[in-house]
Every structure is written in C-alpha cells, then in structure tokens.
C-alpha cells in the first residue's frame, strides 16, 4: 500500500493512500466535530460539519469523504473553517425546536454537545423552528421529525448494520425525511424495532417512548440475558433503576447492534411480579418467610432424603440462564453436598445433539469459529434455524455477508425464514428429513470428486467406512423422501463444495428431532469432506438458544461430565476432582433432565432443586411434567418469578436478575462475556451463587467460598480452557486460556483427527395418521423468548406482541374454514392448546407453526416425550396435530 504524506495543521503526517482526512486527523489526535459520520457506516458527507480547508487551493471540503493526496496542506481549525462550521451549526439550531430542557436525549444529544463545544449559545439567525411531528404509536420508538437533521445515520444503520432497510429518504429538498415504505407507521413496516437507529441518532429525533431519565451519568457495560449471541449492552442507571439499554460498541460479537429483546426487553428487571421474599408452602399455600427459615426448611428436607435414600434420590436442574460461576457452584453442590451426578441444565434440550454429535466428529462441542469470521465465508449454509428471530446478531452477520460481501446463502428449512429472501438457494425438506438431504449432498460431492482430498487424507479418519455407507445410499430415493428436486440438491452440493470458505450454521430444526445427533454428524461430515473445519471463514456454528447454554455445559452442569467436559467415568479425572474438593465423588453418571422427571414420576427421584428453569413450559408434555413434579417429596425452586413450576414447589427462593449480580456468560461462540451488577436487588432477592453457598452451609457441607473471585479461581484451576478468564481487564474476554484446547480453527483437533461418522437416514416408524394430518413446527419469535418467563414480564414486548398464534398455510386454512384472527384448537395425542390463527404462505402445505415462549399457550403441551437415542434429549421441534376452529364465544 502506498504511503501518502500531507501537512495537517502545520505538521507532516503520513498514512496509507485512501485514508480520509478525518480518519488521519483522528489518528493524529485532532478533534474534528461530526454528526453524520459513523466509522461502521458508509459516509454520505451529509452534515458538512467536518469541513476542512486546503491551504493551497482554498477549497473547503468534507474531511469524512475526502481521501488524502500527496502534498495536501490541510487546516482543520482555521478562522475560516471555524466560521463556516459555526454557521452550519447555527442553521441547524435555527430550525430546531426549543425543547432541550424536556428532551429525553438530554446531554447525550450530539448537536447540543457540538454547539456547546463551539460556544454557540444564541443563534443570531431568524429562528424558524420546525413544528413537532411526533409519532409514537408503537411501545418502543418515538420519532419527532422536527429534530431530524437528515444525517441518515438511522437509514444507514438500518441498511448496513442490521440489513433490514425499513427506512430511507423520502422526497427531496425541504420535504425530505427518513420514511418507511409508503410512509407507514413503524409497526406496519419492515421495522423489527431493534433500536439500533435510536442508538445512532445524534439528536432527539429518535428516542424511546416515554421518559427514560434524560441523562443518567451512570452506564454499566454488561451482557444481554436473552439469546446465545451474548451481545454487549450498556445498562444506564438512574436512582437505582435501569432506565435504558444501549448496544455497546466494544467486546461482544454485536458491534453496536442489538435486537428488540436486548434494547427493550430488559424491563422485566423492575416487574412488580418479581419475587422479593422467600416463600415456604404450608397447607398448600405460600407464606412469606425469612431466608434463615426458608434455607433451613430446604436444607432439612434435602438432607433428610439424602440420609434416608442416598444422593441418587435427589436431582438438580440448573440453568442455561445463570452465570458460569453459578452453574459451577450448582454442579459442585450436587456432587459435593448431595453426592449425586443427577445434574443437568435446560439448555441440554436444545444442544445435547450438538454436544454429542460434534464431540464425536471434531472433538469439540461448540462453534468452531468466531462470528466475525462467518462474515468472510463465501458460502453459508443455514439449516434448521431462523437466526433473524432466534439469534438476531447472527442473522445480521449473515445478511451483511450476503449483501455487502457477495456471500452465497443456502437456506435449508421447510418454513420461509427471515433469511430465505436473501438466499441463492432455498432447500425445503419435509420436516425431519434433513439427514437424507445432507447425506445426498455428501454423496454428490464424493461422486463428482469435489472433496478436499488432502484434508480428508491428512486430517480425518474413518473416511472409508463413511464412503461405503454413502455408496449404499440410493440417490433416487432422496427426492421423494425430502421433497426437494434432485437438481436443487445437486446445486447445493456443488455450491458448497466449490467454495474456498464455506460455513454451516444450524439450530433447533436440526437438533430437536429424534435423529438430531445423526444430523449434526452429517453436517460435520459435509464440513470435513470439503476441508472447512480448520479454515478461517469456514467452520460450523451451532446456535445456542439461551444466553449461557454454552457456559452451563462448559461448567459441568451435565450428568456425565465434570467441569470442562472431563469424563467422570475416568478414574484419574475423578481423582483430581476428589482431591481438590476433598470428598469422594459418585462414579456413575447421573440422569438427564428429561429422565429426572420420568424418575420423579415413578417415585425413584424424591427431591429436586430447580434453579432458573421452568420445565412445565420448556419441557415436552406439560401435563406429564406437572405429574412428575407433583409426585416429588420435596422441590425447591429458585427463580425471579413465581413460574408455573415454582407454584408446585415447597420452598421458593427469590433470585436476582442479570442486572443485579456479577459473573460471566459464555456465548455460542465460546466468548466469555462479563455480567455486571448495575442496580440493587429487588426486595430481599439474592444472587443465585450466594443462595447456593448459603444452602451448602445450612446443609453442614459448606463449600470453601466467600467471594465470587474464589469461585472463579477454582474454575480456572479445574477447567483448562477457562484458565485466566477472570483476571483479564478487558471488558470482554475472547478465547480464554488454552485457545488450542477449545478452538479447532488454528489448533489441533482435540483427539488428533477429525472423524467421519457414517450416519443413515431411517424413516420414522410410520405414524398412525388417525386424525392428526398436520405437522406442527415450533420456533422462536423475535418479541418473545425462551419459556416466556422474562419476556412475558417485559411490559413493552408484551404490549406489542400479546397473543400466541398458530401459523397455517393459506390454502389449508381455507380448507378448514379458518380466517385470520379466528381462534383454533390445536390437538395432538399428548394434549391441546388454543391460539389465534394467522394465515401465511411461509409454510408448505400440511405444516403449521407455533412459537414457543407463550406461557398462556404452551406448545410444550402438544409433545410426547420422544428421546434422541444418542443424546437423550427430547424431540421438540415437530409433532402431528389436528386443528379445529373454535366458536367465537368459546
């Protein structure tokens, strides 16, 4: 790259050709004010505030769009430049309303800041303030066009960062403004209310609906508690209340973007329904009590069961929402205090297939590359997930890759997902037949010799067995099984194999089928065949549903692994932990979450400790789950809210939210993200980690911790790939400790070689279709999350998106006499729910879609418990249902 030297404010400075004057000035420590500039966005040179003067020609030019050329002599603060700059600001102020005192942007307003920096108080022009034109008919975003300076930051952020394109300029000259298609209100536009436009708007033109506290002065960087993306957010705090959440630029994978949940969903923190005192059930009713009393009762009952029947009669269900430290403590509590390996976490329902499938293929249970690298892929396969609603940051990254880097997207999903319109190829397999499709693609790659032979030969084993299994496959059969034309399968295979860097992203549409583990292996096979596992821009990205599903598994909240996926059947590993914890450990693996409930129903498990999970809504077959929990001798539930599960407990312990405690979450990439206390606890609620420590003391088996740091120290000591994670000062810690042990990219495969797994598609035993003609698919919607405990207590999300729905193909709806808005009963062999009908062309015939996360219409009711043979996680994506119209009056 050629170096160019210019004279900047009398000093010679150099930079690469193509650098703008503005960037060079900022690198050289010279402050030039800007309003429309944002380093992440394209530069339109709209506000003209950054003008500088070229001394030799006398030209004034916008420094944000002018590249340096040799010999330039630039003055950034000459009298002439300053005069022009002041005029520009005064003109803006002359048309700006006089509402600064009551403007929610307060001192965060950049226009006001710049005016103040330049000493502009009174505007000596005739003032013609624009008339307020306020739109706030949605619960999130308030728009006041009279404060708009037409910098287009909202427009560019919408198009270039979140790639939604809901707004652009409309009109020209004085009448131009940012507007949606047809100038419709935001709630009737493409807008997803991600709130990124709010965070980039330099004035009070875009603010949150309602007064959010103006300038707060206190902002705490932490991590979003919803999905597995682990976006960095700043919580702004005033008078011990969180008033606002903004996307943080640094640290997370989100680079200053968020989704509606991150921007607006945090208000469950201050919900009036939060639990504030411990509850103990007496004669079927909860009575508020003291911590002392509640812990005494819980400890007494757990100790009684352990003493009478042994630890195996107890189980602990932990949480993919709690911090790493809390999960570590919780499994240590189970193993050290209760003496049982019956520990699991709710995230297992979603990710066990990944853990088992990827571990056996590439020796590593998680995403192989970072999200930033996904944007560099040439081809991206997105299978069985809709990141635009389940993991929006990943959705943004994929859309950016397609739109701005020319990546080719292949979507594999029966449903029209948010990404399908961006796809070159949309493969639409019948639900549950992805494995047949993937095997067929692998076969074509082998047949056509498109495989990366060197990689296969040097880095993998078991190829011959895999190839032999592929050759047994009957290519003719795949089209009728999957419903995808042969040509399309061929196109998909060729696109994937031809790319230098090809990545695979997948989610619950793969993992939550009875053949989930095999399908994960089939995806890994494809990546291995084409050498895309140890390659930048390649890789496999399993999405995680919950914020800390990855961390809970890393911390050993699993029945068969000690922290760090260390196999507890291995006597040397067990001895290491026994010595460290100074206690003998049970050598037999415990039972998984779903098995716990089954054993509880049978009376084998008598006591259950549930932390931050709501199995009645998040596990299949609500009725059966309820029976299991009612059959328990004793259950203690630790949560923020009195959930459906907590209502059945004997003791309920109030826990704080993510905003009221410290710790770390590990996102789906494996990035350890800090969680920081921003406000004091609601009532007497306590952080989960403190509760667990106090409970262990009450049980007479105290764990040797008096601070969170001591917990972190023990994690670092015992979990190799978390070494050093807590000591780093950086706000976000990437790839902690032994990078090589954790990441396959750039490091050796954990077991030396990656392994091909022959996996065969076995058609499911033909279900008796007696009266259940529809296939139900479940999934996430953007405005709700998880089992819905938090999002249904988030006031604004609930207001905007209040009702559960069932989405049905327009033609099928007509056949059933259903119209939009009708109420329908959805029935399966396991149970039934009612929901409002929404007709749509997003679905193939005979398929219906229901979102999870609506406590009032739990899709979980409809599922029978069918386990994946290998990972023992339940199939929870799809089942057979029938649908009936309900009479309007009932």
């Amino acid at each position: 790259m050629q170096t160019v030297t210019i004279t900047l404010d009398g000093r010679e400075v150099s930079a690469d050709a193509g650098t703008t004057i503005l960037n060079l000035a900022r690198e050289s420590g010279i402050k030039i004010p800007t309003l429309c500039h944002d380093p992440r966005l394209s530069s339109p040179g709209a506000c003209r505030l950054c003008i500088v003067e070229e001394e030799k020609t006398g030209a004034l030019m916008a420094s944000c769009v002018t590249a340096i050329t040799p010999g330039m002599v630039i003055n950034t603060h000459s009298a002439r430049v300053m005069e022009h700059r002041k005029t520009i600001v005064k003109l803006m102020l002359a048309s700006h309303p006089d509402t600064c005192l009551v403007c929610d942007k307060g001192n965060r307003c950049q226009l006001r800041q710049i005016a103040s920096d330049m000493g502009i108080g009174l505007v000596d022009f005739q003032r013609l303030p624009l008339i307020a034109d306020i739109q706030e008919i949605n619960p999130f975003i308030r728009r006041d066009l009279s404060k708009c300076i037409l910098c287009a930051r909202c427009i560019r952020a919408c198009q270039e960062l979140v790639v939604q394109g809901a707004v652009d300029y409309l009109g020209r000259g004085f009448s131009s403004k940012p507007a949606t298609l047809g100038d419709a209100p935001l709630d009737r536009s493409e807008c997803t209310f991600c709130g990124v436009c709010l965070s980039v708007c330099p004035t009070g033109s875009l603010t949150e609906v309602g007064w959010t506290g103006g300038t707060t002065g206190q902002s705490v960087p932490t991590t979003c508690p919803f999905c597995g993306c682990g976006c960095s957010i700043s919580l702004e705090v005033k008078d011990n209340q969180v008033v606002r959440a903004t996307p943080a630029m640094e640290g997370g994978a989100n680079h200053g973007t968020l989704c509606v949940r991150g921007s607006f969903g945090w208000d469950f923190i201050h919900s009036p329904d939060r639990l504030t005192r411990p509850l103990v059930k007496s004669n079927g009713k909860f009575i508020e009590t003291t911590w002392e009393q509640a812990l005494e009762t819980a400890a007494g009952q757990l100790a009684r069961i352990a003493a009478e029947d042994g630890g195996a009669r107890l189980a602990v269900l932990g949480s993919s929402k709690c911090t790493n430290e809390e999960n570590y403590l919780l499994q240590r509590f189970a193993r050290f205090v209760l003496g049982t390996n019956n520990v699991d976490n709710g995230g297992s329902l979603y990710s066990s297939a990944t853990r088992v499938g990827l571990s056996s293929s590439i020796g590593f249970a998680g995403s192989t590359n970072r999200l930033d690298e996904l944007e560099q892929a040439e081809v991206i396969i997105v299978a069985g997930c809709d990141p635009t609603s389940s993991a929006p940051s990943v959705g943004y990254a994929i859309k950016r890759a397609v739109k701005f880097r020319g990546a080719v997207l292949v979507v594999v999903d029966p449903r029209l997902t948010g990404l399908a319109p961006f796809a070159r190829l949309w493969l639409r397999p019948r639900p549950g037949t992805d494995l047949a499709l993937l095997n067929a693609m692998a076969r074509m790659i082998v047949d056509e010799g498109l495989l990366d032979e060197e990689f296969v030969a040097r880095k993998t084993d078991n190829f011959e067995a895999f190839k032999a299994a592929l050759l047994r496959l009957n290519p003719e059969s795949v089209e009728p099984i999957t419903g995808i034309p042969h040509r399309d399968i061929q196109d998909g295979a060729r696109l994937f194999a031809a790319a230098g860097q090809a990545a695979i992203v997948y989610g619950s549409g793969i993992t939550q089928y009875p053949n989930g583990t095999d399908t994960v292996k089939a995806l890994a096979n494809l990546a291995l065949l084409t050498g895309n596992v140890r390659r930048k821009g390649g890789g496999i990205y399993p999405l995680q549903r919950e914020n800390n599903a990855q961390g809970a598994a890393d911390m050993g909240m699993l029945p068969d692994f000690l922290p760090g996926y260390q196999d507890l059947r291995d006597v040397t590993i067990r001895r290491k932990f026994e010595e460290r914890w100074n206690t003998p450990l049970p050598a037999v693996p415990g039972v998984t979450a779903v098995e716990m409930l089954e054993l509880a129903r049978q009376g084998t498990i008598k006591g259950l400790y549930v932390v931050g999970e709501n199995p009645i809504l998040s596990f299949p077959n609500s009725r059966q789950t309820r029976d299991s929990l009612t059959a328990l001798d004793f259950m203690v539930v630790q949560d923020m809210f009195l959930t459906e599960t907590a209502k059945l407990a004997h003791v309920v312990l109030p826990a704080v939210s993510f905003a009221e405690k410290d710790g770390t979450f590990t996102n789906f990439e494996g990035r350890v993200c800090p969680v920081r206390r921003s406000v004091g606890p609601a009532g007497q609620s306590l952080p989960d980690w403190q509760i667990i420590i106090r409970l262990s003391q009450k049980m007479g088996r105290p764990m040797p911790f008096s601070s969170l740091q001591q917990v972190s120290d023990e994690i670092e000591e015992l979990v190799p790939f978390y070494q050093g994670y807590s000591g780093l000062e950086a706000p976000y810690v990437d790839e902690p400790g032994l990078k090589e042990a954790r990441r396959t990219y750039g490091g050796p495969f954990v077991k030396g070689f990656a392994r091909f797994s022959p996996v065969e598609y076995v058609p499911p035993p033909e279900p008796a279709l007696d009266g259940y003609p529809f296939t139900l698919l479940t999934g996430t919607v953007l405005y709700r999350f998880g089992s819905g405990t938090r999002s249904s207590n988030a006031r604004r999300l609930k207001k905007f998106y209040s009702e559960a729905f069932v989405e049905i193909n327009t033609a099928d709806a007509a056949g059933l006499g259903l119209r939009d808005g009708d109420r329908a009963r959805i029935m399966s062999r396991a149970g039934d729910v009612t929901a409002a009908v929404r007709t749509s062309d997003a679905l193939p015939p005979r398929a219906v879609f229901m979102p999870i996360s609506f406590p009032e219409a739990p899709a979980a009711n409809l599922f029978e418990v069918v386990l994946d043979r290998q990972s023992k996680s339940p199939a929870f994506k799809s089942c057979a249902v029938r649908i009936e119209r309900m009479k309007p009056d009932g």
Partner: protein
Amino acid sequence: MDEAKRTPPVDMVRLGEIVSGFKGQRWALIPLLQRIQSEVGYIPPESVPLISRALGLFASQVQGVISFYEQLYTEPRGKNVVRVCRGTACHVRGGKTILKLVKRHLGVEEGQTTPDLEYTLETVACIGVCALAPNIVIGSQVHGHLNPRKVEQLLKRGAG
C-alpha cells in the same frame, strides 16, 4: 369523488415482465423506472416490491429514488399536461389569474389530475418565451398572450 375507481387497474403481469428483464442489475434502477413510466404512464406503488426484489434493493430505497426525481410519478397522469408559467414576465402580466382560471376550469389543484384522467395541472418557473406572456403549455404546445376567454376556449376544446 370515487377517483380510485377511475384509475385503470395495474397490469401486474406486464409489470413483472418489464422488471424481470432487469433482474440482478442494481445499476439499472433508473432506466427501469423510466421504462415502467414510459409504458404505464407512471410508476404504480405496487411495482416497488417487485423492483426491489429483482434488483436486490430495499423497497424503501426504491421509493426514495422515485420520490427524489421530479420526473418520476407515482400516480396516473392526465393525457394532457397543462403547465402554467409562473415566471416573472408572466406574473407581471397576470399569470396568477390565469392559474386561478385554469384551476377553476379543470377543478383540480397544482400537481393533481382530473378524475377522467384528461388533464394534469402543473406550474413551471419559466418556459423562455416571455415576449408572449402570460403563457401556458399544453402537452408540447405553447399558448401565449392568454386572457380568460382564450383559457376557456383552450380547455373546452381539449375537453371536447
């Protein structure tokens, strides 16, 4: 009053054909818009989603471009476009009254089209034949030295 009813239905099939000829060509947005306008007479808002999908743009972007250019219309236009001059010379010689008369004859305001789609009324800053002021242009024909009687004749003849 029921103007919407008089707007001819949009031939979506034909629109689709025009748009498909430009598939994937982001640069060709303006030529495509001009093509649609020359065939249909205006750019029906219904065509925006078609265009944005075919060219890989956001619908709001396409709308932004259409609304930026004076020459692109999103409503049907009359067969005859009447442009009343508001230049200085015409103003001095009573152009303002001429405009008022034209409005009264046609029953529409500036920028509007008569419900029978015969006339669209516009104003222009100057047409460069100030010697003939006051002027109007109907279609491509200039009419000068206007007075109330002439306006009546012109617009009556056009309507008949």
